[in-house]
């Protein structure tokens, strides 16, 4: 259980999060959705200790501020919204950085497996700077996966905190990455993902937390949260759920296997 209670964050004098409660269970995919600027990234950063906050964040009941950095690194991997790299490392070298931070540091075979998992087999020797945006995003995901490779370690769940993991991906790879997240949760790990794609959210999320203007508008199962009224109010535009509108342009709706 990853739980945040009464989170308040003020950035540059402006209150960004105004008392947000959030909870995610291991074994589930929890999606944080909401409009641009609603505080999704800030909430994730508060939970990972990147911004100062009032309130409390607990992991399996233990306050995260009482844990050591390396201890937390063994139990949760964090994929940032905007990744950066300041020196020309190869893909393999980057993956090894993730591997060394986790408890599987000795498994030299894992980077190859992780690359295969994100659909980038054979990319070990490529320079990160030469990759496309989507390829970079998947390399970063592979790095985070390597850090917390086992969804359950020592009887405790591991956590993936992903900020917009599919924002740069084509529809095929979006599904692939969501399958990775789902699979991780099915095997007992916890997944928290910030998402803009509501259709993917509907397909893959077990729970949805909808942020609006720095407050939690609603948290619950996708079919409770993703409703016409709720989405229209939060996103400030007309939204119809379960209705493919008649119109002059084609409407593309990706479908998960088995739906």
């Amino acid at each position, binding site marked *: 259980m990853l739980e945040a209670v009464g989170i308040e964050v003020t950035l540059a004098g402006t209150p960004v999060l105004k008392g947000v409660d959030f909870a995610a269970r291991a074994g589930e995919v929890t999606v944080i959705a909401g409009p641009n600027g609603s505080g999704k990234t800030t909430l994730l950063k508060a939970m990972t200790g990147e911004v100062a906050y009032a309130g409390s964040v607990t992991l399996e009941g233990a306050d995260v501020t009482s844990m050591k950095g390396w201890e*937390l690194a063994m139990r949760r991997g964090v994929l*940032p919204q905007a990744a*950066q790299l300041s020196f*020309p*490392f*190869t*893909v393999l070298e980057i993956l090894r950085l993730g591997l060394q931070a986790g408890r599987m540091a000795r498994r030299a075979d894992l980077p190859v497996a992780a690359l295969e998992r994100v659909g980038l087999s054979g990319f070990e*020797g490529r320079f990160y700077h030469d990759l496309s945006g989507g390829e970079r995003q998947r390399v970063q995901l592979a790095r985070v996966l390597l850090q917390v490779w086992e969804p359950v370690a020592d009887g405790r769940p591991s956590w993936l905190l992903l900020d917009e993991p599919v924002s740069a991906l084509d529809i095929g790879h979006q599904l692939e990455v969501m399958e990775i997240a789902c699979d991780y949760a099915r095997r007992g790990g916890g997944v928290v993902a910030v998402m803009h794609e509501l259709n993917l959210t509907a397909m893959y999320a077990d729970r949805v937390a909808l942020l609006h203007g720095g407050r939690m508008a609603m948290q619950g199962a996708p079919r409770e949260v993703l409703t016409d009224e709720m989405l229209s109010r939060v996103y400030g535009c007309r939204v119809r759920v379960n209705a493919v509108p008649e119109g002059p342009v084609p409407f593309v709706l990706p479908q998960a296997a088995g739906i």
Partner: protein
Amino acid sequence: MATTDLGPTPGAGRVRSAPGARLAGDRSARARLVLAGLAVLLCVVAVASLTVGATGTALWPVLKTLASGEALAPRDRIVLLDIRLPRMAMGLLVGGALAVAGAVMQGLFRNPLADPGLVGVSAGAGLGAVGTIVLGGLLPAWIAAPFAGYLVPVAAFAGAWITTLLLYRVSTHHGRTSVAVMLLAGIALQALAGALSGILVYLANDAQLRDLTFWNLGSLAGATWSKVLAAGPIILLALCVVPFLSRALNALALGEAAASHMGIPVQRMKNISILCVAAAAGAAVAVSGGIGFVGIVVPHLLRLAIGPDHRFLLPASALLGGALLIAADMIARTVVAPAELPIGIVTAVLGGPFFLWILLRNRAALGG
């Protein structure tokens, strides 16, 4: 958050797997090979430097004499043991220190253009040195006497130390060091130290001016065992600590947040890095003056050869920095013999164009 993509991409495409079962993209085997090669190179250069000099003493006859068990001629003894050997040792120490300080700073600032000279550490040391050269005569004897010949190096030490402390105070807020503020504060401190030094230059007499020029350009000409012993322990201490920063500096390439999510104690690691840089660069500048470009050129060349992995980059920088400075010193001693160029001129002539080339390669990333 802006994506910073500084750093050139050496070659194009991919790093192929070496023969054997190694994975593509694994450059550690090549790095080890380069390290071994650099160690050999350093030995060759070091020995060669003992054979070169204004006096006619040649190394091989001396070695032969030694091997045959005869006593050395007093003159050869002095030239070798008291002039060339400490000079070689100082080149090794100063070159290694400057190159490693550069590599650590670049890793810390996540920018291949960072350098100890950049954050004012060298300028602070310079102010200390200039101040003593010009105003040292005004010091009461009881202060000056204990330092006798070391007054300039000691003052340079103090300058580097004070600058680093100031820099740290300015750029650290609520226990976090902002790299941007630190760079800007460094520029301000550098300008200030430079201006104060400039004022002092106006007060200098002719003899002092000559000293100042030599010190400003940097030189190993004043190398003595006592200077080597003064700077050596500090530099060696910094060089011993720095390998423990490798993993953290590697992780830092992904950003401070990502590094801390990977379990790196970022704040502590930044503090230690800054201390190491100040110690190594301050001690080096103290005994040799402002020798530029070593801290930029050496790590950059090595990144092209073995990649940016600090586990290999840091020791390789120490080796190549030492070899490069000893070699530059040989050039400085021979091109205008029997006179001698300040070594800073040699490194600037070689390093200046190289630095521009680095800038050109990074122009896009720097917003040009």
